[in-house]
């Protein structure tokens, strides 16, 4: 990636001078002059559409990086970014993402899964006894771990099945937290019943650690939905909740088309409570009776990738692709 030229007359050396507290701004402050730099970075890096009305979020979300880099304000940080984009772009783009999530978020999608989707897929996959689920923007892991808890609680009925849950996110810091399986008191009280807390966690100091059997069913990988998928993957269920809403229409269309190539023809994709795929009927249709659930429309070209020729699709030369899933054991038995 090439460094964007700094549009700022102030020298970057300003950063070094800045231990001083940033001046207090009125709440209704106009966007900083460097706003377009941040908006552009988000658009390129994560697809996040950052509107001027949201510019007040910049200061709050970037304050830690500003402190670390010794930058007094957003314009100074933008200048530092122009000097060292390869180091600062990922940090800044990731800090600007909203990582809000909680266990069993919205509840209904999980109830629905248990009541109708899993029984149907279980019957359809009874020969291979394998289910693959992808949480495509898993943040700090609560979504894939909620799924893992559901399978653990139905252990007997899934005996002998390979249940693979993949959690991916763009944010490296979110993934580090997800892998640790360590949550604060606040986090374990949102969405989790006390019964589940006692069953699946142990207390470590002031925090709560998920037990190994829940963690071992989930793999985490960094993956940017803006990039092509590794190819050769086929999932029965894809969770893409509360992430598409941050993209503009074009980006959303690209990401959806991509997700569709990785979804089994009889699989489902699940969106957030406030999201719909209205306008994308060519790709997905609402799954009967399940709010927020969509099934792929029929497409013969797609079956070349999914489900028949797993692992046989290779990226075009020079094209950046995300790494494919690498489950250490092919079948993680419940």
């Amino acid at each position, binding site marked *: 990636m090439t460094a964007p030229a700094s549009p700022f007359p102030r020298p970057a050396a300003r950063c070094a001078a800045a231990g001083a507290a940033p001046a207090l701004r009125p709440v209704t402050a106009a966007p900083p002059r460097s706003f377009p730099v941040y908006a552009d970075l988000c658009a390129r890096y994560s697809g996040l559409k950052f509107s001027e009305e949201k510019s007040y979020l910049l200061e709050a979300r970037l304050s830690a990086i500003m402190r670390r880099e010794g930058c007094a304000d957003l314009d100074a940080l933008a200048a530092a970014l122009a000097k060292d984009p390869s180091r600062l772009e990922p940090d800044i783009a990731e800090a600007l993402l909203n990582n809000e999530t*909680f266990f069993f978020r919205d*509840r209904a999608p999980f109830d629905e899964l248990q009541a109708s989707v899993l029984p149907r897929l279980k019957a359809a996959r009874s020969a291979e006894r394998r289910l693959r689920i992808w949480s495509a923007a898993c943040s700090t892991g609560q979504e894939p771990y909620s799924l893992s808890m559901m399978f653990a609680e139905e252990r007997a009925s899934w005996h002998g099945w390979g249940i693979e849950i993949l959690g991916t996110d763009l944010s490296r810091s979110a993934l580090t937290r997800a892998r640790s399986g360590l949550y604060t*008191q*606040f986090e374990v*009280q*949102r*969405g989790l*019943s*006390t*019964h589940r*807390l*006692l069953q699946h966690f*142990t*207390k470590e100091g002031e925090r709560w650690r998920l037990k190994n059997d829940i963690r071992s069913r989930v793999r985490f990988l960094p993956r940017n939905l803006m990039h092509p998928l590794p190819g050769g993957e086929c999932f029965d269920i894809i969770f893409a909740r509360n992430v598409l809403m941050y993209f503009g229409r074009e980006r959303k269309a690209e990401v959806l088309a991509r997700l569709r190539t990785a979804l089994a023809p009889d699989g489902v994709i699940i969106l957030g409570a406030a999201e719909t795929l209205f306008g994308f009927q060519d790709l997905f249709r609402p799954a009967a009776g399940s709010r927020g659930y969509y099934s792929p429309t029929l497409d013969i070209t797609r079956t070349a990738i999914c489900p028949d020729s797993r692992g046989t699709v290779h990226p075009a030369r020079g094209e950046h692709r995300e790494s494919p899933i690498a489950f250490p054991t092919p079948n993680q038995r419940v």
Partner: protein
Amino acid sequence: MHSCLIVDDSKVIRKVARRILEDFSFDIDEAGDGQQALDRCGSAMPDVILLDWNMPVMGGLQFLQNLRARPAEKRPTVIFCTTENDMEHIRAAMDAGADEYIMKPFDREIIKAKLEQVGLI
């Protein structure tokens, strides 16, 4: 409208909890210890009880044991709300018949999540 009895010896906590619960359209009554709470339940059984652990006269756990041992027409939902945040206390509360458990400090988000958990909102 659901009724809620807030049992806590701290006036401040009762006030904060009352404000949150009223936002969710609960009818509120208050008690400062377990004995007072038992008396209140004797005259009118609330739908839900928000219960502190450590209180003078009668603590939360003892109140709960008494409450669950009593024959009553209605079984109120009991949500512990306490600074005791280790597994032993939580387990003891659930074994004694609590439906949910909130570890202080709480906020609106947590109260809401727990009320949803027990199906009251």
